[in-house]
């Protein structure tokens, strides 16, 4: 059994950590947090130069052609650094949708640009409150034009293109849903920026008015692709969440060693020690679930749907738990704008919802486990 990343993959993780430590310190995150920029353009360019944006994109489409395990280790580091760039929307959602359903021409058009840091992509799925469901999609497609509203769309205000889920039928079945590719700079889309709890990442409302769109994948097969994209993204985002959880745990541990009260470091009080020990337990369980998700993703195993849901749930819980208790360990200082704790708290709680909420993934996991048990 070799249930671990290879030495090369670990080296890539180290390289990513070193790069992000230098290029994405808290100060850089704060520039976006404070509204001075929509995202960190210099960092985005640097990530492209390091080959991280296209690490899982095949060489024929301008990527490094490495694989999803390599992408997992980079995702973990992106989460540790809470990097203020549209990485998850572009790489986990848009690029994966293209890889699964795109024609050669579509891949050739967008993937090299993604790898080079020249195009930001996203997935326009949600239409207001609610979890992923074919029933919730009202945006209509007919004759190659789209009409309707999508929100929230992650990084929608800075994206160059979007994969859009649209209704092409009214039978009430999944086959009513098809995917379209929209060049957001070509007109026909009104973009409104939305505020959200994670000030280091953007959300937007996109209004499509007779917007020209080209089909992505076969008509009526959109929901199947969405499901696959969400499963893949769930594993990758779970690695970001584990990275964030680990960092929040470290911050809490370091502060507990440093801060003195009642004549001793607060880390010597059992109330604090046990809180940190429980955070370690959550983060460890999440990491192990993520490794299984990484294996399933990288081998395209039949276990992926179940593994992805488990990784997503475990990592969501761990990041929320660690980010919340990191503030608690810090006490009053943890509730200041000046300390970085709230940036992790914000990211943890926003990321928990990006691909559908915890209860959505809990539902999915139970369905998938039942299917396996019945088989």
């Amino acid at each position, binding site marked *: *059994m070799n249930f671990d990343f290879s030495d090369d993959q670990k080296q890539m993780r180290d390289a990513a950590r070193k790069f992000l430590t230098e290029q994405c310190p808290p100060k850089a995150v704060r520039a976006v947090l404070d509204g001075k920029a929509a995202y960190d353009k210099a960092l985005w360019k640097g990530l492209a130069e390091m080959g991280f944006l296209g690490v899982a994109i095949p060489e024929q489409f301008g990527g490094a052609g490495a694989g999803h*395990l390599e992408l997992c280790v980079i995702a973990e580091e992106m989460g540790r650094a809470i990097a203020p760039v549209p990485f998850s929307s572009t790489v986990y959602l848009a690029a994966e949708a293209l890889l699964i359903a795109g024609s050669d021409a579509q891949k050739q058009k967008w993937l090299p640009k993604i790898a080079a840091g020249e195009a930001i992509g996203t997935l326009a799925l949600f239409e207001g409150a609610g979890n992923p469901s074919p029933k919730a999609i009202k945006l209509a497609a007919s004759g190659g034009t789209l009409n309707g509203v999508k929100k929230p769309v992650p990084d929608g205000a800075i994206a160059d293109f979007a994969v859009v889920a649209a209704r092409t039928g009214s039978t009430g079945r999944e086959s009513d849903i098809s995917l379209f590719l929209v060049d957001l700079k070509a007109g026909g889309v009104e973009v409104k920026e939305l505020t959200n709890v994670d000030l280091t990442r953007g959300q937007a409302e996109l209004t499509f008015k007779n917007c020209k769109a080209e089909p992505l994948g076969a008509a009526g097969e959109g929901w199947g692709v969405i499901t696959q994209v969400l499963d893949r993204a769930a594993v990758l985002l779970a690695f970001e969440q584990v990275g964030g959880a680990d960092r929040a745990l470290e911050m809490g541990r370091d502060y507990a060693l440093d801060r003195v009260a009642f004549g001793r470091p607060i880390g010597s009080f*059992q109330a604090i020690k*046990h809180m*940190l020990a429980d955070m370690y337990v959550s983060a460890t369980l999440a990491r192990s679930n993520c490794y299984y998700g*990484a294996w399933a993703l990288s*081998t395209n195993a039949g276990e992926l749907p179940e593994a992805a849901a488990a990784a997503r749930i475990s990592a969501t819980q761990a990041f929320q738990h660690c980010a919340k208790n990191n503030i608690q360990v810090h006490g009053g200082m943890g509730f200041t704008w000046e300390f970085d704790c709230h940036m992790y708290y914000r990211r943890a709680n926003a990321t928990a919802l990006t691909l559908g909420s915890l209860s959505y993934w809990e*539902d999915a*996991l139970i369905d998938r486990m039942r299917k396996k048990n019945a088989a």
Partner: protein
Amino acid sequence: MNFDDTPQEAEFRATARKWIAANAPKEFEEELSKSSLGRIRLAKHDMVDVGKAWQKKKADGGWACLHWPKEYGGRGATPIERVIWQQEEGVYGKLTQPFQIGEGMCGPTVMAWGSEDAKRRYLPKLASGEEIWCQLFSEPSAGSDVAGLRSRAEKKGDNWVVNGQKIWTSGAHYSDYGLLIVRTDPNVPKHKGLTMFFLDMKSPGVEVRPIKQANGMQEFNEVYFTDVVIPDSQRLGAVGEGWNVSLTTLMNERMSIGARLATGVPEMFEFCSNLMLEDGLAIDDRGVRSKLASWAVKSNGLKYTSYRAISALSKGERPGPENSIGKLVSGMMLQDIAAFAMDLQGAAGSLTGESEEEARGQFQQMLLSSPSMRIAGGTDEVLRNIIAERVLGLPGDIRVDKDVPFNKIPTKGR
């Protein structure tokens, strides 16, 4: 990443599998498979007798205590081979329960601290299950703070005379030998006045009394010592060095990798898949699904954490500290699952009979037994301290009795 054996591992697995297929006591397979959550039920046979027969057969075939050197009854196997054996032994591994304390704790302590004569005399018979060992550490006033123990040994010529009381001794009633830590000097601070021995449990003056537990069962014992004579040759380590010796034992207690801890999740999943509530199956209920999913990912998390440790062993590396979370997670989960399974049954959830139609009363038994899972072998709180101090590097607690002579430490809170 892959879950495949290396060629050597595959060869070892095939050899083990073949031997088990030819030698395992298949007549007990079904009963053992049905024995869930650590409780073994054999209708017509004594579990210790059946266990001894299987252990002896394994020893004769070279499959007992695999990781021990051959001269002491083992196989000289690598850590990963030991894990593979445990996987292949499967349900029959449940029969090894009476030997686990000897194999996991007493044996390694004798191996590390015993004389060559002692090792050759005692270890092979421990490995083969012909002699069962128990561990005599905890006392009524020394639980998590085991160094506060009060049982005493006094030197009389070449012998030691022991008086005192131990508690929570699993298997004392069927054990042949015991690993015993006692106080030999009350005038020095508590950790410095301890000495380790082993003794024949049939020595005059040893009295074993079963403890009736909160769940109504009797699995643990009290052991009383009245002027029990132990020869000095049965001392392990120097006089006053008992605390150090005990660390060997306790480290081994927490090193058992690949040992699968019961979590109750498979039982709960099956239960919810079949239980009808007013509005349909329990597993279709939103609240039930949410809890089930959280428990399932914890249980999976433990499984894949052990896979990470196995992978490290397979590469010849030392596993990381992440395995320290196992008992902490599974103990709490068992208790929560039991309570929720009973809640789903409404008023009938309190009924405990095995003839009850809902899950044969197993969750009710689980509820009553689960508090011990969170105490035995290190309480949840001790385990959290260990994670906080050894893994996260946080400071140890302030110990007010550390430098005080043992006989000057206050014994009452008020």
